């Protein structure tokens, strides 16, 4: 049996339903008209009557056929949902349940990130070699322009290691944010086809950047060894520092991902923000040495000292670079400025990682239902 809304007949009667086959009218009306009256009182009776069941009656008016289900008519949608403990489709779970879903999706996140990372260079002839070449070339450019031409290497112990660490660590944050801002808009197909916690995407993108950073770190260690730095236990501290930075970067990626989902222009604007941030983070010079010649108001200096990317960079530089002993107080002061760490630097790293990580997570989670709609 079929239930049908024959608008050509239904419209003149406005609130009246009838089926196309005359013999079915009685059963249908008795079953559904109650629900119709209750739920669709706004039906307009003023529309023009279609001539018949032909093509021109394509618009069925404002009436949809009510559910053909006795139980539904009795209990209603929410009543049935309660009786059979059905869940609201696509409803946003609470932050803890959301984290649990992310944990379930962890294999997908990592596999997707790895696959993406490998597919990234599959179009180029040198392929995966670019994973190594890109950071090396980056460092080369900065070394030439800042270190040599602008002379920022002066007064810095082991400038090459100093520069390489700065470039790689900042680049980790920079790329996580740049690609993070496009996490939603670049993957709309995926979002519109499969249900998974959307935070998987910015997290996966940060994992891609982490994988690239790990390759870069091998280069960094090679550079440090070639510059005569000795392997010490301090090198092990790089691991927790990078873990904290990963949490911090994930938080940032989650924030910009939601920004980017709301306003697609974010990814155009972000490079300028990031460049400014890079200059403020002493990637290829020492902020302290640069500022040494000028008077800087205290609060601004405090902010510059506690700027998270600079903290991450300085902490890692301090693990790698051994400052040579010197009797010249001027050089010693210069070295101290170059390697400066504010008090409780590690606590600050933990603080930034937690605040940005959790804050970014909650901020992104709030928009969970909106991604992929626009």
């Amino acid at each position, binding site marked *: 049996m079929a239930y049908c809304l024959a608008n050509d007949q239904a419209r003149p009667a406005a609130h009246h339903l009838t089926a196309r086959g005359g013999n079915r009218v009685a059963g249908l009306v008795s079953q559904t008209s109650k629900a119709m009256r209750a739920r669709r009182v706004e039906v307009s009776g003023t529309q023009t009557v279609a001539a018949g069941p032909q093509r021109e009656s394509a618009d069925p008016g404002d009436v949809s056929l009510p559910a053909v289900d006795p139980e539904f008519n009795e209990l209603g949608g929410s009543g049935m949902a309660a009786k059979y403990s059905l869940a609201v*489709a696509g409803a946003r779970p609470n932050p803890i349940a959301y984290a649990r879903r992310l944990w379930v999706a962890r294999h997908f996140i990592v596999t997707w990130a790895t696959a993406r990372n490998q597919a990234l260079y599959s179009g180029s002839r040198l392929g995966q070699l670019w994973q190594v070449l890109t950071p090396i070339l980056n460092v080369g450019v900065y070394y030439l322009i800042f270190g040599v031409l602008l002379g920022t290497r002066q007064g810095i112990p082991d400038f090459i290691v100093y520069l390489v660490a700065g470039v790689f660590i900042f680049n980790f944050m920079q790329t996580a944010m740049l690609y993070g801002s496009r996490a939603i808009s670049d993957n709309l197909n*995926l979002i519109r086809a499969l249900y998974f916690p959307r935070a998987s995407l910015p997290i996966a993108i940060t994992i891609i950047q982490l994988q690239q950073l790990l390759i870069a770190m091998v280069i960094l260690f090679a550079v440090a060894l070639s510059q005569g730095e000795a392997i010490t236990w301090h090198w092990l501290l790089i691991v927790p520092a990078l873990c904290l930075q990963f949490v911090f970067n994930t938080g940032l990626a989650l924030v910009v991902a939601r920004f980017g989902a709301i306003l697609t222009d974010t990814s155009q604007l972000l490079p300028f923000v990031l460049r400014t941030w890079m200059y403020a983070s002493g990637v290829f010079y020492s902020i302290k040495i640069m500022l040494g010649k000028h008077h800087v108001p205290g609060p601004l200096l405090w902010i510059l000292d506690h700027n998270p990317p600079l903290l991450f960079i300085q902490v890692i530089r301090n693990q790698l670079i051994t400052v040579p002993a010197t009797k010249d107080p001027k050089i010693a002061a210069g070295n101290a400025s170059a390697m400066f760490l504010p008090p409780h630097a590690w606590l600050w790293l933990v603080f930034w990682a937690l605040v940005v990580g959790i804050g970014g997570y909650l901020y992104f989670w709030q928009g969970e239902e909106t991604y992929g709609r626009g």
Partner: protein
Amino acid sequence: MADKKKASSTATDLIVVDGEELTRDEVLDRRSKRRAEAAKNSPTVVVDNLHVHYKVYGGSGATRGSATGALNRIIHRRKHDALRDVHAIRGISFVARRGESIGLIGSNGSGKSTLLRAIAGLLPAEKVGGVYTDGQPSLLGVNAALMNDLSGERNVVLGCLAMGLHPTEIKEKYQSIIDFSGIDEKSPNTSLRPMKTYSAGQAARLRFSIAATKLHDVLLIDEALATGDAGFQRRSENRIRELRRNAGTVFVVSHSINSVRDICDRVIWLEAGLIRMDGDVDEVTEAYEAWSNG
């Protein structure tokens, strides 16, 4: 019933279903039994007065994206004038129960795919009404997770993970997925080649095999059946029947009325975001065909 009388005229043709030869009457008989049974089962999807709005950029042409247009909007503090609201689903209700296979038909833009997405939870409903589901319905849209640069083999793993399978499950099922897709039958090691080297048919077969691996409670299929050769189509239809027998609910969106007739017991006809007809597959598809030819 009306369709029985009509059916007897074509009863001499034998129809093959799951390897059995059945007369038209038997097919109809089984279908009405299935529908009667399904009506007693517990519901898997309850759609209650669902509305879905899309916000769409673009459409109103010339000033979209142009610098002067954008500047103009900012100066005059107007909203994006190309931002339009599309009311794709305009208040529909129905109940789907275990063991049902429901076809969604209707002309282009009638809201079929939007409805599937709303059921899958990809487009949450507006404040009034809603969609209630048992478990997480799965849209057969695994192709979105696959990457053309990767081998078929790795795409199987990736696609299965995207559908929420556990790695150990994937290891167990890997071979059966490749076997079902049949891509290694003609030329071995096809599964090791990047997916971009596959023919359209091979890619479609692999996608369907991955998607049909998991026995979903609710499976949503959007135009996926028109791919692959005849043999593979039959296999995928059988797979859908198997799913239905396992007390799941299957939704199929298709413009091919024939494949809807083959797979579905019940059909919902959508037009302009509203349900126009809901019922037995033969009656609804006939009315739809009469309407669209008329």
